[in-house]
């Protein structure tokens, strides 16, 4: 069992991180904490992608050397890390930053409207406003 956990430790880490994020999104009543949970959730997936591109042993980052337009040495895929998942994650990081930015802007709007960021309090205020017809 222990060996199973250790040999696939990157997967365990990302699953644990993801569950922490999911828990924060579901259980926390403060909207900023929910947002932090969402960030942890996204980061877990980014880490998962980054870890699958890694190889053990004597491998290099994929910088391919050429001289006068010819390869310096023959390329063996086994000698290099897989760059594709990392490149994909550059895009995913941008997406996650954009999402965080939009969410923070929306949180500012929410705070201006209700003077609080606690979901229970906001719902109570909304109920109150609806009853008074405001």
């Amino acid at each position, binding site marked *: 069992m222990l060996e199973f956990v250790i040999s696939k430790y990157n997967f365990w880490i990302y699953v644990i991180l993801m569950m922490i994020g999911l828990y924060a999104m579901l259980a926390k009543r403060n909207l900023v904490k929910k947002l932090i949970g969402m960030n942890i*959730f*996204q980061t877990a*997936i980014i880490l998962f992608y980054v870890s*699958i591109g890694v190889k053990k042993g004597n491998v290099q980052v994929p910088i391919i050397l050429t001289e006068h337009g010819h390869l310096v040495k023959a390329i063996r895929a086994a000698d290099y890390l897989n760059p594709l998942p990392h490149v994909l994650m550059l895009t995913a990081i941008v*997406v996650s930053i954009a999402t965080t930015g939009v969410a923070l802007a929306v949180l500012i709007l929410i705070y201006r409207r209700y003077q609080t960021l606690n979901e229970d309090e906001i719902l109570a205020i909304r109920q109150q406003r609806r009853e008074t017809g405001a």
Partner: protein
Amino acid sequence: MVQQFPALIIIIPLFAALITVPLGSFNRRFCHPWLILVMAATGLMAIALLGQVIAHGPISYRMGGWQPPWGIEYRIDELNALMLVLITGAGFLGAIYSGASFKKEIDGRQTMASSLYLMMITGLSGIVITGDLFNIFVFLEIASLSGYGLIACGGNDAPLATFRYIIMGTIGASCYLLGVGYLYISTGSLNLMDLSRLLPELYHTRVILTAGALMLVGIALKMALFPLHAWLPEAYYEAPSTVSGVAAPLYTKVAGYLMIRIIYNLFDFHFFTEIFPILEVLGWLAIIALLIGSLYAIAQTDLKKMLCYSVIAQVGYIVLGIALANRAGFSGAILTIINEVCTKSCIFLATGAIIYRLGDSRITSLGNLFRRMPITMLAFTVGVFSMIGIPPTMGFFSKLYLIFGCLEAGHWSFIAALLLSTILNVVYFFRVIKAACFEDPRPDYQRTEPYPEVAVEEAPASMLLPVVAAASAIVLTGLGSHWIILNIIRPIIPAGF
């Protein structure tokens, strides 16, 4: 030139969105004609692409000249071409509508809203046009992010609704991304066509099972399939009229398109009936969705809120068609998508026009509306007929094919549920029509003197025109349904049915 249309149809709205900002800060009044111009151009390109695909078969466009599966391939067959026409068509109607509607509801913020509007169209068209799974994720997020921004412009409680949508939407996109990661680990490819060739050998591994499950859950969240629908009603209710009139017809349907691609193109559907029998579950979820959505809709006292629940019910129809996994069911799902885009733009835009004149959309305040806004209400009624399924509207043919599909699959209980939900549709829509016909919900039958004259006050022509256009699209697609089935749906019916 025509060869470059697949790339241009994405690039033009994308760059136009960037140009909108300086143009709008120069003079805000330029935004509206600019939006119409851009949407007209993309709409014409989409129609040209559809014509080309019908005449010459699927198009494969290589972004930057890189060979698939290494480069990003834009693959257009009848299904994406149809979706492109629907997206740009609904976007075009929304663009015409936006002038007066934005001015009334979000005056002063038209520039940014128009820019986001074009971003939304870019994202939605991107999702349907690309044949690369990671590219789909990126476009999914472009569409969602611009959607968040547009919805947050709306009414009083819009920011809270948007925040919930952001959380749910991000979970959905992340699940999808994780699923794509698993597929990448086991095959080393991201190209949809390439993967569909590589995957069958791996069907019995647990990685592929997990990948399929994660992707479907992610898409179901974006699609607001019951029980993952909670974000939708609030978000579309609070959105500005133009936004709900474009987002409600498009977002969930584009997610439905993705579900069709995943179940029938990426995987072989036998995978979902035999190895990982999820289609049965999806079918039952769809039935629950269409009943619960209709019941919730009956419980609403506000017209726009009611329509939002009706969106959830309609998602049920699409998923039902997908889950039946036979010829008629598959055709029914696609016909429902067409019907939904036309009908929901018609009804939501008409509701926006009503809100423009009345200031709110409570059903009790709709009295006498048939005399005050005759054209809007006529278009609304055509939309209602299509929702219920009265020939010759598209809704009739889509339901007919779904029922054929249920018959073929031998699911009698599904047919009963479909018919029951049709009756529920009648109940909740005719309540609205009744309220709009009479001055008073309980008319005085003993009355002998004539009713007082009511002045006609329609919404401005730029808002009325899209409503009428959408209503005529409902009837035209209904009358042309035979042509659609022959030329668009028949070529894409998956092998093995």
